[in-house]
Structure formats: structure tokens, C-alpha cells
């Protein structure tokens, strides 16, 4: 078990900045996920932790020890690659034994530990199979066994589920989580799939264009997105540009472009937004927070249906609000589904309105 610290890490490829000022602390035994769209720098960051490339600036520490430019074979990490990277000229057993052979264990010990590792991933007795004789899901588990058998301090997983089909993905995901809990190993997981990240992680780092957007527990990044990018990427929030009308006690009164008034709570202001009458803010609303209007006093919104679909459990609407789209998921309680062009009056609870920053980007820094 080890904790991992990145101190102001930058990675430059020529003039292109792949990672900018990555600065965070992963606690020992934590399941930590790098989440973001492709090209956001998450894999580059992982590869720097693995030692396959070195930061241009900054430091990487494992348990207070500076490993910034340590060779990858001296880091004591286990890594699972997106395409598994199993050695095609070796059997399953030889693949798993590879790291142990390098550590010069005696033959009996190697055999025992390989058997145990394969047992751990439910592949007992597969030692003598060839790599191309087993399925993708099994290959994935061999890769996991190969990474875990050396009892690494840190486990790195680079989009390990992306080559599996949907059903297998769910099973393997819980398998990975189970192993991580059982072994208590510090795990860094890279994915672009937000639901995967939410389900598996202790904490999530959300990145875009090489820049950290937010770090937090799945609940925090979902419920309290720091900026418009996180809000959109995680919660499918509808985001509106608005002006602050006034601030009274714990309430903030805003006006949308078309003059619609909304009220939200001051505690829902995320981070360092400058408050004051006339200031521009981004107001975010999650689809499942939108309710049907039932004579509430405030936050009544008269909208027109742009598109509607019925999923059985809920009705999903895209509503026209102030020229922008408000997404709404209304749990099915027997209401008639409104069709395109019909009007629908909805209500936003005061506590469900969030005030955000724009996404962190290069220009602001």
C-alpha cells in the first residue's frame, strides 16, 4: 500500500501541453479514478505514474519517496493495459509468472503464487492455455492476475473494461472492486465512462484538455459540480446563463435571458464565484430535479415541449426554456405524456438550483 502524490506535474509534448499543473494526493488504499473525455490527459498522467514517460516539470512521490524519473521496473506497480498486453508467445501461467521470475523466486513459490493469483480471478487450471485460446474477458482477468501476483504497492488500470461487451463489463467491474477491497491496494483507474467511475471509485478526478476540473467523491462531483464542464459531463445538467438580480439572506434571485425569475440557495454557490447584483452566473439544473408544477409559490417555469420520450419508468423531456433546452426526467406517476409543441409547466425546488463557474481552461490561468 502506498500513497501517491503529484506535485505541480506538467507534461509537454513539444508545444502541446498534455497535462497542466496536476497536483493531488491519492491516499493509501484508495480507489482513485481519472475521468474525462479522450485526449484529456488522463492516460498521460497514468503513464507518468507508471514511469513510461517522465513529467516535464513537477514531482511524483510514492510514500514520500521521489519517483519522478525512476525507471518503470523499479516502481513496484502493477498495471493492466487497455488491450491487456498479454505476451502472445507465452502461456497464461508463464504470463502470470513473468514478474515473479524477474524477482527470482524459486519454482515452487512461483507455482503456488501463480495458482493462487489465477484462483483469485476464477481462472484456476488455465495455466497451460495459450493467450489466443481464451476469451476477451478471461484475458482481462489474466492481465489482472499478472498485475496482482507481484503484490504491487499500487495498481494502475488503463480503461480495463473498454474492450469488453456490456454484460461482461458490469461483472468485471464488480470483480475489480471486490479484489481491490480484499487486498486494500491503492488503485488508480482511468476511464472515460462516467457511470463506471461513479460506481467503482472512492474519489474521482475529472480532467479536460490536460487540466484538473474537480476532485471529489462520486456524490460530490455529481451533486456539487464545480463548473459547467463537470456538471454536463457527470450529471447531464441543463445549464443557463443568468444575471443575479438580488441577494437576500440565504437566497439568490436570478433572471434568465427571457426575464424568467428563479430563486436558489446561497449554499449552492460552488467555489469562488463573485456574487453581487448584475453579475453573470451559470445556473445548473439536473433533469431528475425538475418536478411537475403543483401550485408552488416560486420557481414556476412555463415551457414548451421540444421532444419527449417515454421509457416506462419515466418521461424524458427536452423543454424550451428561455431559448435554451431544459432536460427533465419525470418519474411516471400516471400523467399523460406531453407531445412536441404542447406546453408544460414545471417547478424547480430551491435547493436543486446550482451556481457554477465556467470550466477550467488554459486561458484563465
Amino acid at each position: 500500500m502506498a500513497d501517491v502524490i503529484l506535485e505541480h506535474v506538467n507534461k509537454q509534448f513539444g508545444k502541446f501541453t498534455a497535462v497542466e499543473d496536476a497536483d493531488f494526493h491519492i491516499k493509501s488504499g484508495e480507489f482513485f479514478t481519472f475521468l474525462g473525455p479522450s485526449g484529456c490527459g488522463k492516460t498521460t498522467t497514468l503513464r507518468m505514474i507508471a514511469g513510461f514517460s517522465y513529467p516535464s516539470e513537477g514531482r511524483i512521490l510514492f510514500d514520500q519517496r521521489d519517483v519522478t524519473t525512476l525507471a518503470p521496473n523499479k516502481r513496484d506497480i502493477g498495471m493492466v493495459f487497455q488491450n491487456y498486453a498479454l505476451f502472445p508467445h507465452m502461456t497464461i501461467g508463464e504470463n502470470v509468472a513473468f514478474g515473479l521470475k524477474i524477482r527470482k523466486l524459486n519454482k515452487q513459490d512461483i507455482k503456488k503464487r501463480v495458482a493462487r493469483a489465477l484462483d483469485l480471478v476464477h481462472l484456476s487450471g488455465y495455466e497451460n492455455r495459450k493467450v489466443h485460446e481464451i476469451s476477451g474477458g478471461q484475458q482481462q482477468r489474466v492481465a489482472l492476475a499478472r498485475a496482482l501476483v507481484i503484490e504491487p504497492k499500487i495498481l494502475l488500470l488503463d480503461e480495463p473494461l473498454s474492450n469488453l461487451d456490456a454484460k461482461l463489463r458490469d461483472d468485471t467491474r464488480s470483480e475489480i472492486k471486490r479484489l481491490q477491497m480484499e487486498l486494500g491496494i491503492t488503485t488508480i483507474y482511468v476511464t472515460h465512462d462516467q457511470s463506471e467511475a461513479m460506481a467503482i471509485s472512492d474519489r474521482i478526478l475529472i480532467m479536460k484538455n490536460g487540466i484538473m476540473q474537480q476532485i471529489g467523491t462520486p456524490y460530490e462531483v455529481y451533486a456539487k459540480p464545480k463548473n459547467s464542464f463537470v456538471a454536463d459531463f457527470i450529471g447531464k445538467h441543463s445549464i443557463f446563463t443568468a444575471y443575479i438580480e438580488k441577494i437576500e439572506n440565504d437566497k439568490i434571485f436570478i433572471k434568465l435571458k427571457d426575464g424568467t425569475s428563479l430563486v436558489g440557495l446561497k449554499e449552492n454557490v460552488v467555489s469562488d464565484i463573485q456574487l453581487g447584483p448584475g453579475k453573470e452566473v451559470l445556473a445548473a439544473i439536473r433533469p431528475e430535479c425538475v418536478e411537475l408544477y403543483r401550485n408552488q409559490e416560486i420557481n414556476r417555469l412555463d415551457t414548451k415541449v421540444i421532444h419527449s420520450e417515454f421509457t416506462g419508468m419515466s418521461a424524458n423531456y427536452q423543454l424550451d426554456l428561455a431559448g435554451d433546452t431544459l432536460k427533465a426526467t419525470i418519474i411516471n406517476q400516471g400523467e399523460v405524456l406531453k407531445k412536441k409543441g404542447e406546453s408544460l409547466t414545471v417547478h424547480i425546488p430551491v435547493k436543486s438550483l446550482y451556481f457554477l463557474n465556467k470550466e477550467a481552461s488554459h486561458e484563465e490561468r
Partner: protein
Amino acid sequence: MKKDNNSSSVTKLPISAKPWFIYIVLAPIFFILLGYVVYPLYRVFIDSFYVDGKFSLELYKRFFSLSSRTNIQATWNSLYISILSVISCGIVGTGLAFLLESYEFPGRKVLKAFAVIPMALPSLIGAISFDFLYGSTGIIPRGLKEIFGLAKVPFYLNGIAGVIVVHTFTMYTYFYLPISAALRNRDSSLEEAALNLGASKGQVFRRVTLPMLTPSLIAASLLVFMISMASYTAPLIYGIDRTLTMQIVLSRTNGDLGMASAQSTILTIISVSFLIIMRLYEGKRNYASVSKGAAVHRKEVKSQFKKTLAIIASIVAVIILLLPILTIILISFSKDGTWTYQVLPPKYTIAHYAELFTDAKTWKPIKNSLVMSLIATAGNVIFGVIVAYAVSRVKFKGKSIIDKLIMIPWALPGTVVGISLIAAFNVPSIFSFGQVIVATFWIIPLAYFIRHLPLIYRSTYAAFSQTDSSCEEAARGLGANWWYSFRKIVLPMVAGGIASGAILGFVQGIGEFVASILLYTPRSIPISVAIYQKMYSFHFGTACAYGVLQIVLVAVLLLISEKIKGDSEISAI
């Protein structure tokens, strides 16, 4: 972009991760490319501008002089032969590809299997067999004369026509293979879509099928043109003195190294321009079909008459394809000096084969070829592995320079390689560590090394780029140091691809004639040169026994290479 300057510091990289480290590793590679590819060409180029140690355009004046038009005529002949070869190879190769890929008829499979036979025929043996078969004293013309009791032979191959027929036979596969691959892999749904949109069959062929084949056709044309320009063996056998390659060798034989340099320079410029055109064109063409589409169906030949016709035509074609090899085999059993005016050799013996392996003098060229080709191939493989690993795994500037330098020898005619090595290494130079290499044993392995550099590098590079680089990273992550993971993971994964390429290079070395004839010393005579010498002392039997040995070696090695390639493709998922 503002930097957070108080807490971050620029990372101090270990030596192996410094950007200049790769250049130190690659320094020997640059040395080899500069010394053995660039420098010899540079010498030839410079030599062509100096007469008696003074700068002069005299040689080029002579080349383009209108009073003695030998060189202009040679250039014209070379171009003319090359263009006709392209047309002829194109018709035969493309026609055969269409026939074999579009129609189902009795004999198709057999014909298809034999269609690639010319590839196993070393150039000298190919040309000699045609002379034996179709020359003025050849088996076929004489045989026809005897059978029909004619006063004269009814036809025979000679001169430029002979050269073009030999070129067609040996080079049509450069059209046949890519065109049949393109036809086989084409997306038939495109043609169906065109039919569905109302195009007639003729329109579909002109507007859809043909444009899809154009890239392959153009690439094959350029290739055949380049190889024809470089061809030396066929003009030699048919006595066409006035081609550029023949003139180069003649100048060299007459001791006029200056003129040989000027001629080589002109030929190099033509060849390298074609290489450049080809590379530019390769960069642009990309008609890879998007969908797999339904398998292309071959049309079955149904009528009995056509079926019979197809069987007869297939048999004739197979005979034509096999005759050269059969002839060489037959003559290899003939007693030296007994075959004069007869249609077929009158007396037979197996002594030539016994001699090959028992007589020290006859064995020597075989041993020479094996040893020299092996040395060159070993050098190629080491060079290829280093460069291919660096180019496919490491980021550095100068990749495209290395790639271009390596590809140059591919465009160079063997004659030019020979002349340029003579020009560069008949005096001591730093690249030969102060030694004269010309007239030593080492000059031919060096020539083979240069000639087969592109072939082996290409296949080695392909092997590296097809394997997954994350396997190496996985090994490193599991604790293996660089050398260990290179030996245990990287090399085993690429070994098959490298071996199959190396065998191809070795095979080329076994059959090499053009550079060898310019560079051999009495102690380093390779098989092809021995064949040539035996031919001219009328030891046809011995010459052909050497030839059969060459063919067997080439065929066996090619089969092994294919097998290895197939195996390694299966294991590299």
C-alpha cells in the same frame, strides 16, 4: 499560459530519457547509411565531373554528344525497353489476375498455383533458360524445324524482343499479385451499389472497378519500369549492348571509370526520380474499402466448349510457366560439350551434381554465395532491428531521413551499386577504416548488404509495428529491465517477421548476379558468376546444375519464409 514558478522545477531526466540519447545510439546507423549508401553515390557523382583531376563537364558532353550517339541511344533503348516491358507485363499480369479472380473454370487452381513460379527463378537462370528454349538454336524453334521438316527455324527470340519477353515472364507477377489481391479484397457491394443506381456492366467496370484498381496498376507500372531500367541480365544474354546498364559495365571493363560514373549518375537520377514519384503516389493512394462486403463471387464457365478451351489454355499456360525450369533441369543432366546441333542434349550424366558437392573447385562458388549472403543478411538483420525498434518505439527527429536513406538502394540498379562501391572504396576512406575494400572478399557482402537493406528493413519494421508496444511496457512494469524485456518479450514477438524478411534477403543474395559480376575476385566468385563463366565455356551441364541448386534453394527458402510468416501472424493476435 502562465507557469506556476515557485513550486515546480524542470524535471532532471535520466540519461536514457534525454532527447539526445537516441542520437548516440543511432550514431553507428547514420555512419553506415552515410558511408555505404550516400558516400558511394556521392563519389560517383563527383567522379563524373572530374577528368584528370580537374573539374570538367567533358564526360557529360561526351554522353550527350551527337557525333557518337552510343549513350543517347543506350538511354533511349533503356527507356523504350522499360516502357514496352510495363505494357507487356501489365497486359499479361492484369489479364491473368482478372481471369483467375473473376471466372471459375477447370484448371483454375492449378494455374493459380503455378502463376507465381517466375518469382523463384533467379534473374540469370531465367534469362539463360529462355535462350535455351526460344533462342536461334533453342529447343522449341529447332524442334519445330525438325518436326515439320523446315529449311530454317520458324521463329526465334532475339534482341530487344527477347529482352521484353524475358522481362514479361520474370516481372508480370508485379502486376499479377497486387491486382489479384485488389480484385479479391474489393468490396463487391460498391459494384452492386452502382448496378443498383442504374449503371450498365460496362459503366460499372469503367467507373467503379477500374478506378479501384488504378492505384495498384500505377504502383506496379512504376515498379516494373524501375526494374526494367535496372535490368542487366536480359540485355547481356541477348547481346543488347546499347542499354545504360550494359554501357556502364562496358565503360568499366574498358577502364573508363569516369564515363561509367557519368552513365551511373544519369541512370541513378532516372531511378531515384521514379522512386520519389512512387513514394509520393503511395502517400496519396488510399482506397481501402470501408466495409468487408460480401465475398466476391467468381463467374462459373458453363458451356462445354468454353470449359474445354479453358482446360487447354490452362495446360498451355502451365507448360509455358514450367518449361524454363524443366529445361534447366534437363540440361543440368547433359554431358558438357556434347550438345551442339541437336534439338535436345544427346548424352546425359549425373556427374555435375556429384561435382557440385565433391569437387572443391565447383563447390567453392556455392560456399561463397552462402557465406557472403549470410554475412550480408546478418548485417541487415542487426541494422534492421536497431533502426526498426528505434523508429517504431522512440520519438525523435530524423526518422524520415533514415527512412528515405534506407529506401534509396531499393531504386539503385545493381550496376550502379557495383560502380559506386568501386568508386568509393578503391582508395582508402574513413568509411572503410583506411582500407581498400575493392578486390577483397568483403566488397560483395557489402554490396549485398546495401542492395537488400530496404527489403529486410521494411519487413523488420513491419514486424515491430504490428506487435503491441504495451507488451514491452507491461514487462517493464512487472519489473523487467530494458534488456530483459527486449530479449524475452520484444524479440520473441518479432522473430517470425524478421526471419521471414531475412530469408527473402538471403534468397536475393543467393541469386544476385548484377553487382557480383562487377565486384567479384577470383577467390569470391558467387554461384551466378560461376554459372555465367560456365555458360561461356560451354559447360552448359555444370551451369544448369548450379542453376537447379539455386532454384531449389530459393524455392525451399521461400516456402520456409511463407510458413514462418503464416505462423507468426497466427500467434500475434
